[in-house]
């Protein structure tokens, strides 16, 4: 602070005041400095200074953690962007690949039917017919019922095969 020496202050005041005023201003300045030297301001409490240091260290640590977190987010975002670009770069998959064949385990008529209610009724009907015929066969074989005329078992079995075939035909 070059202009803090009395000579500089005198010169500085001399630029704005006449000689007497500049002299008086210089004198007031020196007196003011003396007053402030005599009546020093209180110093901050030692505990306050320590507290401020701790506060600053905590704030710096938090900033460092935040910076690391931002860097982590940025890296994750970059990975996601690269992955999205790579996926988009492949373009859409061909609709039908010649190397892949599809097979169905259900009859096409059933699979493609939109009439669910009707299909359900038919299923219930066929299922009950099969159960009825199986029960008759079991009864005939166990001899619980009157013996049917010759060939009736074969007829029933044929009927069962027919029903099953019809079912799978849809």
């Amino acid at each position: 602070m070059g202009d803090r020496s009395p000579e500089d202050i005198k010169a500085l005041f001399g630029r704005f005041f006449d000689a007497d005023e500049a002299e008086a201003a210089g004198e007031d300045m020196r007196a003011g400095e003396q007053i402030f030297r005599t009546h020093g301001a209180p110093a901050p409490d030692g505990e306050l200074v320590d507290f401020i240091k701790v506060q600053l260290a905590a704030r710096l640590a938090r900033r460092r953690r935040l910076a690391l977190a931002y860097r982590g987010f940025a890296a994750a975002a970059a990975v996601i962007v690269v992955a999205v670009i790579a996926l988009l770069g492949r373009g859409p998959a061909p609709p039908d690949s010649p190397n892949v064949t599809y097979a169905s385990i259900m009859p096409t008529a059933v699979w493609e039917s939109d009439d669910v209610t009707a299909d359900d009724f038919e299923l219930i009907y066929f299922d009950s017919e099969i159960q009825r015929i199986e029960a008759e066969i079991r009864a005939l074989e166990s001899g619980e019922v009157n013996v049917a005329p010759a060939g009736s078992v074969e007829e029933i079995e044929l009927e069962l095969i027919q029903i099953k075939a019809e079912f799978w035909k849809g």
Partner: protein
Amino acid sequence: MAESAKVARIIDGCKSGDPESFAQMVDMYAGRCYGYFYRLTGDRDISDELLSELFIKLVEKIGSYKGGVFESWLFRIASNLFHDHLRSRQRRRKLLDARRFELERVSDEPRRSDAKEETLDKLQVQLNRLDPDTRELIMLRFHSELSFKEIARIRSEPIGTTLSKLHRGLKKLREFMER
């Protein structure tokens, strides 16, 4: 010169987020800044608060320090903080004025601020008689140890105005102190 090199090294450390450099900064400037705040407010609690805020601001803003006289930069922040404090105090005062009726009732009780004033030293009492602007100018001069040119720059006024105000203020303070 060695001192300015030391300060430059500490500032570099602060800019890189080194807690030890900030601790050194606190050791270097806490006394002067505290004196500045105390002489402006006459209140240790407020000065404690303002000093803490100042160093927190320092952590936030050190990246924006682009060279020049560091004290000038630091005391500009200190001055802004003090003005923020004054504004918030004025807001509080307006609130209190709105509730004058209640205050008048309270005024019958012994005033806490009077009791506080008894503990102030002579200089503080006389400083409180100066207008706030002159008081701040004198405090900037004696606590920041900045040149008049730098003080004028902080206050955004011509150096002649700064000198004139300071001269009038010091003359008045000298008279008050000699009574």
